[in-house]
């Protein structure tokens, strides 16, 4: 029981993961930032005379079936990909915690009710849910985000619930109750911070899943509206050209892989660190 500085701990394995993750994610984020100020061509400008050009000097990533510059589109797409996944996860996270922590803390009927709702959403085809949202509020990025948030909230709720159930049994929570701290404060200040270790990896994985789900929605015509694009949408649009114009598939796919792989490495790093450090 001698003094051990666990939170200062940083395993070499973890830092390796961080390095890899940040590099990959960095590529995507930097393209995103640049795209805000400058893209080689306007990503939406069609040019019937320059259709399906293979990568060349003036079009490093080639052009698509509208004669649009793929590089510019990839840059622009990074915006939507990041935006949608981030915002969607944020919503899911908020909904999940707000529902999950009380469920775990109070238990009983509150728990039953919340989990029941969660389960029903989970076994409800996400596509249908998305379609409803889009049909009701019209197809727009915002609605896609809400749909995604809703579809993914239950998973976060589960994590929070289970974590809370464990934590609330610990002495420091009991102590807080004895000291007369209000329940909402216990949940917010005492329990939530200790859920973060479990939530972080879940969040990162959530981000990755979001991008995949979003691309799936684009494949079905929901999701991002043309001429805007996300990586997923670019992929689904270009799949027909996979034989004649592979570059239409390769570059967005590459970016998508970078993005998700980067996120995964970072989450891996977090997990390793927490596993090594957070253990009792």
């Amino acid at each position, binding site marked *: 029981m001698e003094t051990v500085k666990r939170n200062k701990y940083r395993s070499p*394995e973890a830092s390796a993961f961080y390095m890899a993750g940040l590099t990959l994610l960095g590529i995507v984020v930097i393209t995103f930032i640049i795209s805000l100020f400058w893209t080689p061509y306007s990503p939406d400008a069609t040019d019937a005379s320059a259709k399906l050009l293979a990568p060349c000097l003036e079009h490093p990533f080639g052009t698509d079936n509208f004669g649009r510059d793929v590089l510019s589109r990839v840059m622009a797409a990074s915006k939507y990909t990041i935006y949608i996944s981030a915002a969607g996860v944020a919503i899911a996270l908020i909904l999940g915690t707000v529902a999950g922590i009380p469920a775990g803390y109070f238990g009983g009927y509150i728990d*039953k009710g919340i989990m*029941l*709702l969660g*389960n*029903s*959403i*989970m*076994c*409800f*085809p*996400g*596509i*249908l*849910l998305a*379609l*409803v949202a889009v*049909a*009701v509020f019209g197809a727009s990025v915002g609605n896609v985000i809400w749909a995604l948030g809703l579809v993914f909230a239950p998973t976060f709720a589960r994590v929070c619930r289970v974590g809370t159930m464990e934590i609330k049994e610990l002495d420091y929570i009991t102590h807080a109750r004895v000291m007369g701290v209000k329940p909402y404060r216990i949940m917010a200040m005492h329990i939530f911070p200790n859920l973060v270790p479990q939530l972080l990896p879940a969040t990162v994985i959530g981000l*990755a899943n979001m991008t*995949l789900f979003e*691309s*799936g929605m684009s*494949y*079905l015509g929901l999701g991002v509206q043309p001429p805007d694009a996300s990586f*997923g949408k670019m*992929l*689904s649009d270009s*799949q027909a050209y*996979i*034989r004649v114009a592979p570059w239409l*598939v390769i570059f967005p*796919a590459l970016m*998508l*892989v970078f*993005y*998700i*792989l980067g996120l*995964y*490495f970072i989450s*891996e790093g977090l*997990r390793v660190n927490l596993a090594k450090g957070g253990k009792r």
Partner: protein
Amino acid sequence: MQGKVGYFVGKLVELLVTLLLVSLLVFAAFSIIPGDTARIMLGPDASEAQVNLLRTQLGLDKPLVARYFSWLFGILTFNPGTSYAYNMSVGELISQRLPVTIGMSAIAMVMVVLISYPLAVLSARKPGRLGDQVCSVIGHVLFAIPPYVASLLLILLASSLFSLVTVGNYVAPSDDFSGFVGCLLLPSFAIALPKIAMSFKFLRSSIIEQRASDYVRTSKSHGLSDLKILVRHVLPNSNVSSITIISIILSDILGGSLIVEQVFNLPGLGRLLLSAISRRDFPLLSGIVFYLAFITVLLYFLSDILAAITDPRIRLK
């Protein structure tokens, strides 16, 4: 045992309530989506008269709530009604598509287990070593590829490398079962890929965790061989924790087959669902969604039961 029985009953009730909730959700969703079944069936050039005629024929003029309850009654009496678009019994339609979806899910699941398990065991033996890292990275790459892209790539590979016909030659199980399995293998693989990565990731960490636990040390001090410890202690324990994740993966696969069906042009539930949505075919739509929901909930239920059986510590409320 008394306790366990009660526990199961409780779970069963939960299952039923969930299903009811789902059916309500479906119904609400359906009533919100715009679109007129009759108009869709007849197309843009049809006259109002024709549309109205069909509408009354389908009983679409009845109030929504009435339709819901009649449908619910139908479901409860195992008679989900007749599809508007196909005017066939929904049950029949679904049972036609079921083999594909179930078959694909089953095959995919087998692949997941067959591939992820040994890999997990292997890389958990020496965590952090090269092989382990490689497996993890590949796993993540797999996870990063959208299913339909994976499908396309697989099709390309199969057709260009092995010059195989992989698309469109769907064989009904009744005709030729091995053929049926054959034509499902590739699509199933496409679905399985990311899930393999997922379950590998999970199993690996849980095996590593179990290896470090006290009872393993005890068994060592009893002089058990590593293999014995692995098979008799580590795997069973990590399985207990895997049950939930496996059930989640399975339900994912069920839902995720949709897009792959599209690419491989297989007559599965997913495509039926899509067409039911796009044609506002409520009996069919609700039938399918309810059916899928039922399977999913059942999976969760079973996994709970399984956990309760395999894990003697399970808390019985």
